């Protein structure tokens, strides 16, 4: 497919240490568009190998508002079901622009390895130097080894290496959307990380019309968002304690007008604007995890510090928070470190109140939104948070699909596709 995608489908057989590529056919894009829908088709094809499929949506990496989304589709070890988890930040866009819009992982690497995707080249590289390291050191190592600051990294920490149910796959340095045990799945594959940097280009069918529609969508988004920002805009009304005293800046993901994530500084004053400390604090994106860690009367600063510990260990913070004692920071930190080595019953996928399609999607707060709209967002590569907040204008999506790919889709076609991934 030459429009809206570049490159090919990558198949990685970790047992053999081999990669192969296959054309992303027009027929597949015409019928399934992308994102979770194509992921699911690939999952079914490789079902016997129990694959982990990583993909990008049709609009991922463009100027369609909220289009940061990459999607992981795999059997969750927590409930045995095939689940979709969101990948945010710049990871989805970089994956797509690296020339591998879809990646199928299966098998188990004999020795720890990591996958490096760039310039339509897939390198399966040894990971002995980073196996045993936390996720922050892993990201630093890969960026230094490959010489690029903007490489995006999905990695596991100690909990994933130990193949525990409470493991979480971490995007760059941050706890994000994996609440379904993907970290354990990658650990079972002895795959420390997937790293990617994209320098490709996405062509469209009608450039002028595409630009006009993107601008119209952005205008509508801005008027609906009304300047909303920070994690308080994710969870209006939640008690965020002393967040204001550590808030640094609010930031967005690739192509998103809504800076719904808040960076907090607790190792230096939050007012510091210069590049001073290398590790001044933590980006709070996983607001469910953060709120869980704030339970039992912890301050926002201590909760953020513990969220950093979880991210470094690749430990899902909601499950871990339930195991923490009524104790101070140091004891809680020590307990988290032990939880990255000790199996416990996590009780399934963490429960988030009002989660939309909890049977199919990793709960990525805030939740809400119409089921079919959220599912369609996972196909198109639009962040489910954004879709829940702003809404998904299906008529505008139809126009954007036609302008970018030339494909004419009816509302019923799109809703049918959405329903096919949540049945």
């Amino acid at each position, binding site marked *: 497919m030459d429009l809206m995608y570049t490159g090919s489908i990558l198949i990685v057989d970790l047992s053999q240490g081999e990669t192969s590529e296959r054309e992303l056919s027009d027929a597949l894009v015409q019928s399934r568009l992308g994102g979770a829908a194509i992921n699911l088709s690939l999952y079914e094809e490789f079902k016997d190998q129990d694959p982990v499929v990583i993909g990008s949506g049709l609009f991922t990496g463009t*100027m369609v508002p909220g289009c940061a989304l990459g999607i992981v589709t795999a059997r969750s070890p927590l409930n045995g079901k095939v689940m979709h988890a969101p990948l945010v930040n*710049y990871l989805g866009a970089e994956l797509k622009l690296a020339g591998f819009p879809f990646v199928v992982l299966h098998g188990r690497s004999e020795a720890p390895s990591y996958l490096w995707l760039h310039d339509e080249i897939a390198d399966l590289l040894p990971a002995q130097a980073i196996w045993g390291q936390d996720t922050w050191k892993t990201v630093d190592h890969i960026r230094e080894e490959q010489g690029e*600051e903007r490489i995006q990294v999905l990695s596991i920490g100690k909990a994933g290496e130990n193949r525990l149910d409470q493991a979480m796959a971490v995007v760059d340095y941050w706890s994000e959307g994996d609440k379904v045990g993907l970290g354990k799945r990658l650990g079972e594959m002895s795959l420390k990380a997937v790293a990617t940097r994209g320098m490709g*280009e996405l062509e*469209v069918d009608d450039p002028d019309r595409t630009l006009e529609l993107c*601008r119209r969508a952005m205008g509508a988004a801005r008027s609906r968002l009304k300047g909303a920002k920070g994690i308080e805009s994710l969870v209006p009304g939640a008690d965020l304690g002393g967040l204001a005293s550590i808030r640094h800046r609010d930031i*967005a993901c*690739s192509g998103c007008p809504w800076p719904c994530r808040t960076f907090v500084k607790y190792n230096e004053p939050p007012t510091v604007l*210069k*590049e001073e400390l290398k590790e001044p604090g933590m980006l709070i994106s996983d607001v469910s995890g953060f709120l869980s860690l704030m339970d039992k009367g912890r301050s926002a600063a201590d909760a953020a510090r513990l969220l950093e510990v979880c991210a470094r260990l690749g430990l899902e913070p909601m499950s871990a928070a339930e195991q923490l004692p009524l104790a101070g920071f140091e004891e809680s930190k020590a307990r988290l470190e032990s939880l990255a080595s000790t199996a416990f019953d996590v009780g399934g996928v963490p429960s988030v109140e009002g989660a939309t399609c909890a049977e199919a999607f990793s709960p990525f707060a805030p939740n809400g939104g119409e089921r079919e709209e959220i599912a369609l967002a996972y196909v198109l590569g639009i962040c489910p948070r954004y879709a829940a907040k702003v809404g998904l204008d299906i008529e505008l999506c139809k126009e954007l699909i036609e302008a970018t790919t030339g494909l004419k889709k009816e509302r019923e076609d799109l809703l049918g596709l959405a329903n096919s991934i949540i049945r």
Partner: protein
Amino acid sequence: MPIRIDVLRCIGCGLCELACSYRREQVFTAMRSSIMLHLDDKRNYFGVMIKLPNDDLVLGRPEGLQIQLAGQSSDDGAGAKPILLREACDECAGDRPHCVAICPSECLSQG
């Protein structure tokens, strides 16, 4: 009219890069833009830089704006090298600049 940068409004979305590249080549990429986002995500240090027609760079840093003269190198590894190889900003030849039009946070403006 020159493009103004209010860096503390930047939210790091990168839409300016996409819009600039799109205007030049009508494809989605961040690789052809005259404006570039600088991201140091672990420090949450980010800003934008613009290449001017005389090859000077406007560096929009959180602590303030700075002009880096053509031929000078950045003193802090700010990653300006890729933009030096690209076309300079022509402010979209008199139209409202695409980066300004798309910027959702009013980090970029004109006047």
